[in-house]
């Protein structure tokens, strides 16, 4: 039986009647009272995820400006000196794993380490030695009532009148008005945030029911610049970051702390969000989905994950050591989420295409992996999004389009040969305004009725991590971000409406709010790929 139980932050109405949150606030306060160079400090832990406080890094703003930590509006009051020594900087800081199959296990270890430090500080103040990090299940509650941030985080003071360390000034929300919520079902049936990735049945890669690059993310080795984020990382994780952080004004280049990996972990809500991500990963496993058996995953990368450990020594850990919740010392108050339906997506698809395979046939067909993945079409290079949406033409190759069309003739009840799938790729997306969510549409008509746009929506992408990925000498080598969206339903519709002989698809990119001046987003290329089964 696990020693610690992580509870729902919305217990006892999500205010300080929930003692998990009260003690969290006191623990955070204690950690905030330590210096930047102290491995037990809030700031050091935040920098482990990512930072803009060391002026000797390539991503420190030049000239100095937000999101430099010295330009953050308090609270919290973020220190900028003294920096740790170079050895500590190299070992611990800026480790966060994004766009990689290490995303989930790295963050699990990160939370485990922080939780131990917080518990230590809580116990020293007379708090319970059973305390564990709460989670914010934005999908939960009656009629989805927990989509809102727990009220304890919005209060500037604790019940005793002292300052509340959980309150952060630079937290703006989806509408930029300080109302912090996650637009997700059931309260927002169309999202954009959702838990559809929980229906994936593959941790990495793709099959007939799981789009690229897989639930947990793409396989990466030493260097993973240019890799897209995993399906679960993209949605809900990235979108929650973007929406909770938000931006206060369409004319200011400022955005909320949660919107950027280099400031996100300064906000105490970060860890409740990641606790929920961790919980949902555990739930995905509990639903019968397995983590990779590949030792390249379980042994971790050559550059080991390191967290501050007891006695000032680093704790090195691998994905293999933290992957099974049953072998760790904590569990969750509630692990169930929506029942996963990996066969449903494929069944629905084949039904639409006129086939009626039996359940056993479906089950094996779900696991079919693509034999070939190839470019189907591409846009011109160097697209720019400013204050208004853009539309561009993705020209399709005639020969490959014909091959895709032929694949639909193979659709049958035996599901022996599945039709092609397709995905859209946004390549080399660069810019500096992370708090942007882009809506991507296919063949969006110019004139349309209210609500009709939804039919043409391929998906939403959050530009969480954009700035750091754009920096030429940053960890992404200046390549920017890459996004993948499954557009198989569009391919199916083109087939059904006998429109698959089209020369091109029109792709519209719509930012969720006008971009401030000088924060244009550039896209290297938009491409479409087919996957042949």
């Amino acid at each position: 039986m696990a020693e610690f139980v992580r509870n729902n932050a919305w217990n006892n109405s999500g205010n300080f009647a929930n003692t998990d949150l009260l003690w969290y606030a006191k623990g955070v306060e204690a950690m905030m009272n330590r210096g930047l160079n102290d491995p037990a400090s809030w700031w050091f832990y935040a920098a482990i995820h990512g930072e803009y406080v060391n002026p000797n890094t390539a991503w420190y703003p030049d000239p100095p400006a937000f999101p430099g930590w010295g330009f953050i509006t308090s609270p919290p009051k973020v220190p900028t000196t003294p920096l740790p020594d170079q050895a500590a900087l190299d070992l611990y800081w800026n480790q966060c794993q994004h766009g990689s199959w290490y995303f989930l296990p790295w963050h699990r270890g990160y939370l485990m380490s922080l939780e131990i430090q917080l518990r230590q500080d809580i116990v020293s103040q007379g708090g319970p030695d059973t305390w564990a990090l709460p989670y914010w299940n934005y999908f939960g509650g009656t009629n989805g009532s927990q989509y809102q941030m727990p009220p304890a985080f919005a209060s500037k003071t604790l019940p005793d009148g002292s300052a509340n360390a959980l309150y952060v000034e630079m937290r703006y929300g989806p509408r930029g008005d300080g109302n912090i919520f996650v637009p997700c079902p059931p309260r927002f049936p169309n999202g954009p945030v959702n838990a559809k990735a929980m229906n994936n049945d593959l941790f990495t890669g793709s099959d007939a029911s799981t789009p690229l690059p897989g639930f947990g993310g793409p396989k990466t080795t030493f260097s993973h610049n240019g890799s897209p984020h995993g399906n679960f990382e993209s949605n809900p994780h990235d979108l929650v970051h973007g929406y909770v952080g938000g931006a206060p004004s369409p004319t200011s280049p400022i955005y909320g702390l949660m919107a950027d990996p280099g400031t996100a972990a300064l906000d105490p809500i970060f860890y409740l969000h990641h606790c929920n991500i961790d919980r949902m990963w555990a739930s995905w496993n509990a639903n019968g989905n397995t983590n990779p058996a590949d030792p390249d995953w379980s042994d971790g990368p050559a550059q080991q994950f390191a967290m501050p450990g007891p006695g000032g020594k680093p704790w090195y850990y691998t994905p293999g050591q933290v992957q099974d919740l049953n072998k760790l010392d904590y569990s969750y108050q509630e692990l169930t989420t929506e029942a996963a339906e990996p066969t449903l997506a494929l069944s629905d698809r084949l039904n639409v295409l006129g086939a009626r395979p039996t359940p056993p046939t479906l089950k094996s067909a779900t696991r079919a992996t693509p034999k070939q993945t190839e470019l189907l079409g591409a846009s011109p290079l160097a697209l720019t999004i400013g204050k208004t949406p853009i539309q561009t033409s993705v020209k399709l190759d005639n020969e490959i389009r014909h091959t895709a069309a032929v694949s639909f003739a193979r659709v049958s009840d035996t599901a022996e040969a599945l039709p092609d799938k397709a995905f859209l790729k946004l390549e080399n997306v660069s810019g500096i305004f992370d708090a942007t969510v882009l809506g991507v549409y296919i063949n969006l008509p110019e004139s349309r009725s209210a609500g009709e746009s939804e039919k043409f929506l391929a998906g939403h992408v959050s530009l969480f991590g954009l700035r750091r990925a754009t920096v030429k000498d940053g960890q992404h080598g200046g390549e920017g971000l890459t996004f993948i969206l499954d557009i198989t339903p569009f391919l199916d519709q083109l087939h059904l409406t006998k429109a698959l002989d089209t020369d091109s698809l029109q792709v519209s990119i719509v930012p969720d709010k006008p971009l401030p001046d000088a924060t244009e987003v550039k896209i290297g290329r938009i491409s479409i790929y087919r996957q042949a089964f």
Partner: protein
Amino acid sequence: MIYNEREYMQLRWSLTGISLIAWILILVRPASSSSWCCGGDCPTQLQMVMAANAPFSQIMEALFAENPPGPLIGDWALMLLAMMTPTLIQPIHHIRANSFVRQRMRLTLLFVLGYFAAWIAAGAAFVTIMLGAKVLMPGSFLPALFIGLIALIWQSSPAKQRSLNRCHHHQPLSAFGTRADRDAAEMGLNHARWCLYSCWSAMLFALLLPAGHMLAMAAVSLLAICERMAPPRTPRWQWRGFDAVWKYGSLQLRRFRRPGTASA
């Protein structure tokens, strides 16, 4: 990102195989020029002409007689194939993953042509320096020591890291027509440029050694592969180079340990 593991492994093994074949050829076939592998003990015609204070035209004649340009270029190209091919796995994968299937071979060749054209042009300069050293200081380690010192400084410099970072940057590519061809060739030239900036001093150092040339080239090759495996980093003054192989070796050792339960 790797879309197809099998295709990626085929590419990796093909390029590694090309490199290995090139290394074998270098080791087993005789050098086309006395300049490459002569230990410097035997007095060459060039050295005798120099010792006799012959006129400049006679010196040049002896120089090119002993070092015919064609075979020199051939030897240089063979060394590039041996040393640099493994570092091209990622950029060639980028070309192939982002172009239409029927164009992949052509665009890969254009990339390779652009890449090697830049290196061969650079090779003319490198070899000229090498020949000059042979003429002016035959058999001496001084030129190599001098460049070696510069190589050490360059190796630890922020400029070196900047060059390595640029090697990781893969540009978006036009997909259709002659623009696709142009972009592939341009990517080859660009990649070679950053490779050259990164490796020039180490390459020159190995070339200038009057003895131990092959061993030095193998070490430089290993250095280039290790550096290619390391992720981009903030440019700063620091020792860099073989830490990737150290970390990879440590990872292999850790694999033999039994994983335990996590307790931070």
